[in-house]
């Protein structure tokens, strides 16, 4: 495992989550194969990985919904196994599928949870109404949840996690299945929550989401953490100089890829459309030489740039596999 970290001291006083060696098996399948995680208080921390990487299982263990087979963890200073009720008092979890009662109205869902937390009568109703207003759901308060759109459900689901301000909020794929507008809404809410001091651990398959929101990112694949750091650190790990070129003629990409591969000596990544190529260049000089070679071959470029790799490229470099984002783009292309 490549571990890059500018932040490392293990100090339980400042850690919202301190997990060591968490393992979970389901029969013969090892969902989580020994993961350490240290999340300081107040941070947005993203767990990034493809489907089946073990993200959800890891989160369910931290939220006391699944018992680890081995390893230890504390959440807001409470041990996961010996003090599960104290952990539950300090967290809230919004699962991958809206955990709402479809038959009840949005308001009734929130009142139900407020009462379970101990708000009584009028206070439970006031808390529900405050949250409905804050999440732009006041107009739909008296509608059954089954009539809500995906974005409304997700907002209500997050509101349901904020009846009492949690120390740690777990969000399992908070924007999966949402349209771009609803996704931006959820991102805004997550940022606002973090500003108010809530520690947020979110899982995502979307590299852009981790990049946009999280101060630190752990990349998980096949039950193991394969990298961790800030977005910038992860990008730096795959090499500084990335060269991106866009071809005027997509049919020449094989020739262009051959030229780049010869000049740079690394594997060339091709975009979904096939008109764009990118590759790691060891240095700016190498990148310049590669560009010159392309032009010398008469391959016309519409655009080129040098800079840091995207997280897609980082994921590719770390796992040797395309991320789901890239797969989806390829499918829709």
């Amino acid at each position, binding site marked *: 495992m490549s571990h890059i970290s500018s932040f490392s001291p293990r100090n339980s006083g400042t850690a919202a989550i301190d997990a060591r060696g968490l393992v979970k098996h389901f029969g013969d399948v090892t969902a989580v194969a020994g993961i350490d995680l240290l999340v300081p208080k107040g941070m947005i921390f993203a767990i990034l990985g493809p489907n089946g990487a073990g993200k959800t299982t890891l989160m369910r263990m931290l939220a006391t919904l699944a018992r680890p087979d081995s390893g230890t963890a504390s959440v807001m200073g409470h041990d996961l196994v010996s003090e599960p009720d*104290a952990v539950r008092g300090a967290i809230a979890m919004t699962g991958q599928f809206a955990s709402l009662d479809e038959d009840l109205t949005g308001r009734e869902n929130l009142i139900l949870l407020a009462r*379970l937390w101990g708000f009584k009568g009028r206070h439970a109703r006031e808390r529900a109404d405050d949250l409905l207003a804050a999440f732009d759901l006041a107009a739909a308060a008296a509608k*059954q949840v089954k009539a809500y759109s995906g974005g409304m459900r997700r907002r209500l689901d997050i509101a349901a996690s904020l009846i009492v301000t949690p120390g740690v909020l777990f969000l399992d794929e908070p924007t999966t299945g949402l349209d771009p507008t609803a996704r931006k809404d959820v991102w805004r809410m997550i940022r606002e929550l973090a500003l108010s001091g809530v520690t947020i651990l979110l899982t995502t398959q979307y590299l852009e989401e981790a990049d946009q929101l999280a101060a630190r990112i752990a990349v998980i694949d096949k039950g193991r953490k394969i990298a961790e750091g800030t977005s910038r650190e992860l990008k730096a790990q795959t090499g500084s100089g990335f060269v991106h070129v866009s071809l005027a003629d997509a049919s020449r990409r094989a020739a262009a890829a051959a030229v780049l591969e010869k000049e740079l000596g690394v594997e060339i990544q091709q975009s979904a459309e096939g008109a764009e190529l990118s590759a790691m260049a060891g240095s700016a000089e190498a990148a310049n030489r590669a560009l010159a070679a392309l032009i010398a071959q008469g391959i016309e470029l519409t655009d080129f740039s040098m800079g840091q790799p995207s997280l897609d490229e980082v994921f590719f470099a770390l796992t040797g596999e395309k991320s789901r984002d890239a797969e989806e783009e390829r499918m829709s292309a």
Partner: protein
Amino acid sequence: MSDAPPAVLKTVARPPKPSALSNALTFGWRAMLKFRHVPEQLFDLVMTPIMFTLLFTFVFGGALAGSTSDYLQFFLPGILVQTVVFNAVYSGMGLSTDLGKGLFDRFRSLPIWPLAPFAGLMVGDILRHLIAASIILTIGLLLGYRPEMGLPGVLGAFAFLVAIGFGMGWIFIVLGLLISTPTTVMTLGFTFLFPLVFASNIMVDPATMPDWLRAFVDVNPVSLMTTAIRGLMNGGGSWGDVGLALIAPALITAALAPVTLALYRRR
């Protein structure tokens, strides 16, 4: 939208931890809301017993008991048992639905009494049993059924129905926890319940059945329940009958309540 956090997202502290009873009553409130929002569920619950009551009384009643009114007198307490036993399947289906939707994950991540969601299911069940039994009894009264033991007998019978519904409910709660498809819970439930309900003394006097079948019918818990409720409503029974009928629900509760808790925690 401004970048500053809205006022409502400012820290809200946790109120004092509510009691286990308060948690259970909150889930009971949820069950009541379900009746308001999904009144159709009552239709499912009472249509079959109403059909049975009408068909058996008017089609078979005369042949089986000499007159339709005599048959109704014999049959009505038994159909109440059948209604409650069949209704128990629905709480298993509801549980399976909740689990499939991730709703129980939220409940399980809350600092509440772990059995509160089940207590809430039970409250819903009890309401369902009482509402369905009241509707069937009302139809019976309109058709000419007369409980000879009067109001105390009817009240006793309803309390007895709640007790057997509570006991039988555990079977389907366990099925609901084990099986993720609500319709499979229903199919399995009815596959198990149909022989129990038909090979009993609900519809007919077992005197004419072959010996091997009667041996089963005589010890079938559904028969014991039917005998007990006939005694409570029509007279001629004993407290011993009631005690005997409550053995099966008590054993089921003792065996399956811990299984329920273990399954719920294991997930």
